[in-house]
């Protein structure tokens, strides 16, 4: 199809700019999210793509506010953790960031950190 490449580019870009989250990857994550995930419509990942952007934006900006509070110019992991802790709707991330709130362990996020 003559228009195939333009069409697929349109699909892979949730917005008109060059940066957009890849829909196939999003779909994969969706499938991993629970045991009996239903079929996913072709348009659902597009909605996710935008929602993710908004989410990242909110989290990033809140983390940035923490960085400024600490009078720094480099955003650290603990800033992201603080942003999560102070925002109600980010409660689902508490476990994810709790290990970085206490100590800095850049590797092994998947394994639970046992505190002595």
């Amino acid at each position: 199809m003559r228009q195939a490449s333009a069409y697929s580019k349109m699909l892979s870009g949730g917005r008109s700019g060059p940066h957009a989250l890849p829909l196939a990857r999003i779909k994969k994550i969706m499938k991993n999210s629970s045991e009996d995930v239903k079929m996913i419509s072709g348009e659902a990942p597009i909605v996710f793509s935008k929602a993710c952007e908004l989410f990242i934006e909110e989290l990033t900006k809140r983390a940035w506010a923490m960085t400024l509070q600490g009078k720094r110019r480099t955003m650290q992991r603990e800033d992201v953790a603080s942003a999560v802790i102070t925002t109600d709707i980010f409660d689902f991330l508490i476990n994810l960031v709790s290990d970085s709130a206490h100590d800095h362990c850049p590797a092994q996020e998947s394994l639970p950190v046992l505190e002595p």
Partner: protein
Amino acid sequence: MEPMDIVGRTKEDASLPKATMTKIIKEMLPPDVRVARDAQDLLIECCVEFINLISSESNEVCNREEKRTIAPEHVLKALEVLGFGEYIEEVYAAYEQHRHETMDTMRSGKWSNGAEMTEEEALAEQQRMFAEARARMNGGGSAPKQSDAETQPTSNS
């Protein structure tokens, strides 16, 4: 069998591309701001977890409505339920815009007969074609497809 399977399922199977994410993150901050590598990684993980959360909820919404496919409406409902209601408007707008753009691409492709059609004309054209196809399907066969083969289609002796 991957070693991951033995330890138990982790959600590391798919993550979001770092380069893309880094760009998006940097776009949202003043240009002279630096983001530590581990902060970036954490942001990405949070995003993946966000997708997991919304996906699970969308799945639930879909179940409750007894549908088989997770549709955009289910995702929007999930966002609302989980407290991300303020995203809905923008998300919906982006979704509508995408549909619009997709329709435009189709319009300039094989659907066009040379003359430029407006969106309404393209939509009407599409509806007409669907109706034609439907009529062909209904009118062509002798009888509509039966739900099961218990009744004998052939004539009784």
